[in-house]
């Protein structure tokens, strides 16, 4: 018996679209803006401006603890944050103390030192203007211990040199001796734990940046428990914009977050387009079923 051939409607064809076509379009939406260097400038929001102002208003020589709680998997989001914070801190003459709650963090801070500190701030000396202390295990337990005695956990820098031999470690007994904590994180343990285990009990100003996935979890802490924070790549791009406004020389320098915002815009447009198409086909199919 010959089956009757049924004409496939346009919305049925769209509804049955191969997922690989969607992957391909998303890939093109990211690759093309990267090739043509399409970028967008995002004006800084209040939450980013508040953090920027907090760092800006610290007196020169302030002690900034920067925690690298992420790894290469989220570096495209987190590394531009670290770069922007470092540039800002060194422009203001602050001292940076680099630590990590993640074992993969020290590699990211090392990359930052090679690319930004040694590349752009030649006069900055390890042990005097910045120090790389590396990773320690313990998650939030480590923060707890650092809050009562910093040097019991960190006895040396990353290279194994006695911590007491560095002039910038003088006067650092616990976390309360830092003027601000900038925690850059992408999960547990990360920025949230710095608020819970250092900022709140120690009354220490905490700011930082997180991957976009983590950002919604941190909004409730602003502004009472956090000075401000950078939510994903957009937050990093906003901080870069604030940095450019105050220090125009950065307009001509690499701005990883702002550069990546172009593909972000086009990819979002494609996704929004597919959401609309998905809803449209659903409504059309529902209407057709109602007819029969």
């Amino acid at each position, binding site marked *: 018996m010959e089956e009757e051939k049924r004409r496939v409607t346009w919305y049925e064809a769209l509804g049955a679209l191969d997922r690989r076509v969607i992957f391909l379009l998303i890939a093109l939406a990211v690759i093309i803006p990267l090739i043509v260097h399409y970028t967008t400038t995002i004006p800084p929001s209040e939450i980013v401006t508040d953090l920027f102002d907090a760092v800006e208003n610290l007196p020169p020589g302030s002690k900034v603890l920067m925690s690298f709680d992420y790894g290469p998997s989220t570096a495209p*989001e987190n590394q531009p944050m670290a770069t922007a914070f470092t540039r800002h801190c060194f422009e203001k003459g602050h001292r940076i103390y680099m630590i990590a709650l993640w074992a993969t963090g020290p590699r990211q801070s090392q990359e930052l030192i090679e690319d930004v500190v040694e590349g752009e701030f030649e006069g900055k000396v390890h042990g005097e203007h910045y120090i790389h202390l590396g990773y320690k295990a313990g998650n939030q337990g480590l923060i707890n211990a650092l809050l009562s005695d910093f040097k019991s956990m960190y006895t040396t820098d990353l290279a194994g040199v006695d911590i007491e031999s560095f002039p910038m470690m003088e006067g650092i007994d616990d976390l309360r001796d830092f003027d601000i904590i900038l925690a850059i994180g992408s999960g547990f343990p990360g920025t949230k734990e710095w608020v819970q285990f250092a900022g709140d009990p120690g009354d220490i100003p905490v700011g930082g940046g997180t991957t976009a996935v983590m950002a919604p979890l941190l909004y409730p802490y602003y502004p009472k428990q956090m000075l401000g924070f950078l939510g*994903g790549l957009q937050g990093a791009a906003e901080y870069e914009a604030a940095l450019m406004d105050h220090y125009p020389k950065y307009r001509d320098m690499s701005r990883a977050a702002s550069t990546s915002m172009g593909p972000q815009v086009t990819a979002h447009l494609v996704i929004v387009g597919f959401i609309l198409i998905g809803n449209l086909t659903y409504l059309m199919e529902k209407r057709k079923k109602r007819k029969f």
Partner: protein
Amino acid sequence: MEDTPILASQLAETISLWIGALLTLMIFSFLYKDNPAYKFAEHLFVGVSAAYWMTVGFWTTLIPNLMARLFPSHMGRVFPVAVGNDPEYFYIVPLVLGILLLMRLYTRLAWLSRWAMAFIIGFAAGTNFTRYLQSDFVTQIHSTMIPLYEPGGSVASTVGQTFSTLVVVIGVICALIYFYFSKPHTGAFGKAARVGIWVLMAAFGASFGYTVMARVSLLTGRMSFLIRWVQSIF
């Protein structure tokens, strides 16, 4: 002769670029369909990650924070800073707990690991309880108690501020009502619960939007890397 280290470093960079690019393509191949190249890259990642975390943990925590405190005079080769320090015998306690934890590997004595586990769980529960109670409960309640009207700003900013505050306060109350199941969700109570659902949906939507942004950011990072790799070839 002086060029040799530069050439060696360039060669190392090129090799690492190729390895990274090929592994990225192997992982991306899953988007077409599951295949042996993807499986190879996945297993390699798991193995390397486990080895990396173990090695880093050993050299950055176990050696300086435990062995160097118990046996400082024997650390000459691996941790010279500790030589000359007095041994801190209190650290025998974490050493014993650590050994007990490893007993899990030996079936007959696996029960001993429960003592170390009990210590870890007790410590984590105790510290987390107090910190969560302060940061995520008491302070959050305090943060929700905000004045509806704050004089001093322009009319537009005051109206905007008051509206934002109302959204926060009504949103929190309605979301809490939705999770209150001791009373039927009918009448005014049911309407408030309905608003609570909408508030939760808005929160989930925002969270989804952020997740999309995060994933696109990571894709952009990988694509930039692949473009750099292609440029290095030509």
